[in-house]
């Protein structure tokens, strides 16, 4: 999964979201070891200090933890990963709804369209 960074928002906040996404989607599964700050910074082509700040915030949030001798790991707490997953999903849906409203759709219409599309996809 490539790193996608937009140009109009702080890089730090975007790195946090992208790492959360990588954790939720199983790129970095619970309990797994993360690459070093330098390697992550290189992979995302970002400043190492910015990457370090993003990791520190995720550590504060409890999603990552540091073992003094062996590096940085993803939490083993599945519940916590689940919570983050829900948070990300809600953000996506709010974003989607806002765009649909801007196009002039009412809630009921949106729900109906969604149902139709889901049925189409299933077939």
């Amino acid at each position, binding site marked *: 999964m490539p790193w996608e*960074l937009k*140009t*109009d*928002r*702080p*890089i*730090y*906040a975007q790195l946090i979201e992208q790492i959360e996404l990588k954790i939720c989607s199983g790129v970095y599964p619970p309990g797994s070891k993360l690459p070093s700050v*330098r390697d992550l*910074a*290189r992979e*995302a*082509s*970002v*400043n*190492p*200090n*910015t990457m370090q700040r993003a990791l520190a915030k995720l550590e504060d949030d409890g999603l990552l933890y540091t073992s003094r001798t062996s590096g940085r790991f993803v939490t083993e707490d599945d519940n916590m990963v689940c919570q983050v997953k829900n948070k990300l999903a809600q953000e996506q849906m709010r974003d989607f709804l806002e765009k649909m409203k801007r196009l002039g759709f009412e809630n009921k219409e949106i729900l109906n369209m969604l149902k139709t599309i889901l049925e189409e996809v299933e077939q």
Partner: protein
Amino acid sequence: MNTILECKNLSKSFGATKALDGINLTIERGRIVGLLGPNGSGKTTFIKICNELLTPTSGEVKINGFNPGVETKKIVSYLSEKTYLNDWMKVSQIIRFFQDFYADFSPEKAYDMLKRLNIDPNSRLKTLSRGTKEKVQLILVMSRDAKLYLLDEPIGGVDPAARDYILDTIITNYSEDAAVILSTHLISDIEKVLDDIIFLKEGQVVLNKTVDEIRDEYGKSVDALFREVFKC
């Protein structure tokens, strides 16, 4: 002491023209700093003063506590805007030359980077294209284990793929002990790699913030802000 470069009230005039006009700056170790400004804003003059190629009209620069001179040249790795290498020399000879000059120069690092960029160490400089010459010069500068890298437009003359490699090299080479100051016009290519942004305008510092502060406060990229501030 965490400050690697400090300048106080630094000014430089060429006749009636003020190239630098009362610059105050403090650069910490472990930072990657972008020195940005339109043509003629004083970027190269500032970098040249830091390398003792020009002397200030008033004010001063201290690098690791010293005025620019022998002591600072040991720890400053400088990429100039022009090539100064002898055309008749082979790349390998220039590497030996640098090894003699600088105690912190690593030939292994240089040969490794030459290989990555597909440059034959046995070729003579005059047979290389302008872009390749610029790559060689940057390789020499980045192969030193310096405390301050002063890079005057390091990515201007090279192709986008080499640009990515150079940025990658700056990230890989990152050390908490060393600072990098680079000037460039190619802001969008480089802003993700920078900590701090300094805007120079007519010899004065008009903005000094981190990249994320700029994106947060203005809701736009450094590149977009530059185009707005320096709109012609």
